């Protein structure tokens, strides 16, 4: 008998290979990872897995493990910032069963594992800056009752998260635009918010015949800067500096500035462009010149880039820019 048992333990069945212990948690239960075999990692397929789990077993055994597994797969599916998905996960928990019915249950953590699981879920929401809504409160109430730890967590979140949400003085929409151009507009509006008189222009480099890079340029210049630029002595060169970074939540956008460094008051125009190549910076200068800054045709401009942003080698070709006095300095 004992030998049989021992044999059984040693015997690794091939089907066992399909099972694996979930790495993200310290739980000892081994479950099949239902998320691994999805061909497409999208929100729809993620929700499908949840639905399959809900439909599969009427008792929904192993739902805590399932939720933990689902939580750690969120990034992979790109749904970690989606409230609907978190709600779908909470909906996996059975309603009513975990609500304490007497003071002892209420005091001594009724269904601790499930409560911890819901708290972890809320924690993950908080880490991803997803704010729950009123409906979520209702779902949690139906699951754990008003004495549940997840409810306390929820209420704390709802106290603090709105306070933190709008702390930044620079407003960004709830969902950042996917279009880089729109994102850049937001970025440049933030950088130039110091002077409310700043005008933001969007130009296409195609306007300049000699431009190699066909891209867009967002340039910001205030009227004061324009006046200062017009008064710039021709003997003193202007300097382009950059690229600098500006962060919009988790997005980073780079920009360049045009400075007149020898004068007391720095004058700077700021630009963002699609490629950040030197050619596009040249186009920027030409476009600035074209748009009410005629002095730039005669003032030398020095490029002092902190790091070469692309491998495009820049050599002056006199025929491309005939009257150019722009100097390129590494």
């Amino acid at each position, binding site marked *: 008998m004992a030998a049989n048992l021992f044999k059984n333990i040693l015997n690794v069945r091939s089907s066992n290979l399909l099972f694996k212990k979930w790495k993200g948690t310290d739980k000892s239960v081994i479950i099949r990872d239902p998320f691994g075999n999805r061909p497409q990692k999208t929100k729809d397929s993620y929700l499908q897995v949840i639905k399959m789990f809900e439909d599969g077993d009427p008792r929904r055994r192993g739902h805590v493990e399932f939720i933990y597994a689902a939580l750690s797969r969120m990034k992979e599916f790109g749904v970690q910032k989606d409230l609907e998905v978190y709600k779908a996960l909470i*909906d996996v928990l059975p309603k009513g069963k975990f609500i304490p019915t007497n003071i002892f249950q209420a005091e001594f953590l009724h269904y601790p594992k499930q409560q911890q699981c819901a708290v972890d879920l809320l924690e993950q929401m908080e880490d991803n800056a997803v704010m729950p809504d009123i409906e979520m409160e209702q779902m949690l109430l139906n699951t754990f009752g008003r004495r549940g730890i997840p409810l306390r967590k929820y209420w704390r979140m709802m106290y603090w998260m709105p306070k933190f949400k709008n702390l930044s003085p620079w407003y960004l929409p709830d969902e950042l635009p996917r279009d880089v151009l729109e994102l850049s507009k937001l970025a440049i509006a933030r950088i130039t918010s110091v002077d409310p008189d700043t005008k933001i222009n969007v130009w296409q480099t195609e306007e300049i015949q000699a431009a190699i890079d066909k891209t867009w340029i967002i340039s910001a210049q205030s009227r004061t800067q324009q006046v200062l630029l017009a008064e710039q002595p021709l003997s003193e060169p202007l300097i382009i500096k950059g690229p600098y970074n500006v962060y919009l939540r988790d997005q980073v956008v780079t920009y360049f500035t045009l400075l007149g460094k020898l004068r007391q008051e720095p004058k700077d125009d700021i630009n963002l462009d699609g490629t950040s190549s030197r050619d596009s910076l040249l186009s920027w200068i030409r476009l600035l010149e074209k748009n009410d800054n005629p002095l730039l045709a005669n003032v030398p401009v020095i490029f002092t880039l902190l790091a070469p942003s692309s491998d495009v080698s820049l050599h002056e070709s006199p025929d491309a820019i005939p009257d150019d006095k722009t100097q390129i300095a590494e």
Partner: protein
Amino acid sequence: MHGCKIVDYKGGRNKKPLKCGAIPEASAGYKRKIRISAINLDTSEATQPSVQEEKFSFEDLKVIERVENRKAKILPFMKNVFISIFDRDLLAYPEILTKEDAQELEKRLTILEKVFQDSKNTIEERKFALKETNMYGATVSLTNGGLAANNTELLRYLEVISADLKLGQEISDHWVGLSALMKGLDKDDYKNVLDDLISGDHTVSLCIKETLTDRLKQEDFRTTAELDSSGTWLLKGEKICTNQSSYMLVLSLVEGDRVKAFLVHPGANGVQYKHNLVIFNDTPATPLEHVREEDLSQILGVSRLHTATLCRMNLSHGVRYCMDYIKPRFFSGKPLMEMPTIRSVVGDSMLCMYASESAEYFTAGLLDGYLEPDAEIEMAMCRNFMAYHGQAMLLKLLSIPDVERQQESLTMLDSMRQLALRGENEDSVNLFIGMYGLHYAGRAMATEIKQIRNPFFNPMFFIRKIVSNRHQEQDSPKLDLYLAEHLHPSLKNNAESLEYCVKRMRFACETMMSRHGLEVVQAHTELTRLAQAATEIYAMAAVLARASRAYCIGLRNAENEMKLAGCFVEASKDRVKKLLIEVIDGEYLNLDHFRLQFGKKLMESGEAICEKPTARVFW
């Protein structure tokens, strides 16, 4: 506040309306819209193509109609303030729009904004955008092809449309007219005119006011309607109408004393336009039979709310115009923006706009959120608040660029003046507010007033009254409304200021009524002061509620709102305090008696009533 009702078009069955939370089985699209969990996600449908038999079941033919999910009826809010009763629940600030409503609203607003914010667009392009977004049918129910918009939404639309003030006024009249028609016309008549009106080719204009009479014995209200032998109503009289359009909603007297509204169709006989007058000479019109006078006055009162919004937007255009002027200019080596005087003027106009905006949406919330709302004086208050402060603010604001740009400033001031005089002037609205409020207070305090006016018949009451009024006489009423408990704790001081003002109102009413008795309706100067004080109190309440709500739910810039609320309430409290003390003091202490005498003498003599300062009696 709004749910959705499924209207079953099959006559025999009378289904109960479903609220938004429930999922109607037949409409899958609807179900998908409110899905909150993966339960409803049908995998087989999503992944595999399936052939389904097409079924046409006419039982499934359903139109979703928007029904209003209103709270139970409440006592009139501001009328109660006249007797120092304050509905503290309203300090939560009404929330009317659901998430779905708000999303739909934003979508439509984005389209309108694109067209209206670009000043290059012509009026035709703007009208086209209004038609495209179904703005002309905004108040009409969904089943009739409209948007079933509530007052809160109308205000949002109007804010955008008011970039063109003429269009703004036109569409406001149109909306008000349409709601009156919906309530008052026969179903068939309503259906007949509806297509015309929704399409935007024809609009409704309101003909309510009449010119003042030039004869002593003539009635103030002279337009009459009579039934002719064929059973048609014929209108006779003249009305003021600044916005002349094809359909007209005319108020007229019937059978001597009843007021009834009539709809005059385009091309009707005997209509003559004369400058800003419309003259009706036996003009056939359709009567609005089904609407009571009280309801009609409530519906027409919405026009006042719209006037407030239009005034506010005009002021905000003024601010923007001013900013464009200020930004690139310098004064003694500093940007003009850094001048404290200029900053304070711009800040004041911000305060004014904030208060008015709060009051407008608060009123819209009262109208949309409760059953049988009685918010007539609230609407009038919104109008007067903005008309009064707006004109003063714009004048101050435009004095900044005025030296250089007189012509543009004049245009802006003129449009503000026109808006402030839209349909009526400030005095008449103030009297309306004062009388309505006092009428309500009078009914609540009738016995008390009688006793006060007969002290020797009621000696004990008189003594008790002296004791109970001792705090009021010292201008420090006992604050027992505990308004601060219903607001954010940081607003405690401001809440107490509001409470002080509310507590003073009853005493002011009591003093006025016991002083004048039934003649109180003649005490116009005091009534005006009372109305102004009540208006300020209303604005204070709305501002506090809004700021507190914004701060509690963590809106962006909510800390600014708290400061705005604090500044406004403190300034407003001083104004109310002064006004009410003047009311309580009476005409000899507040010097009204003399001011009236000056006016009287001047008007009677027709010339200055005092000599030039250089004149002498003897040399």
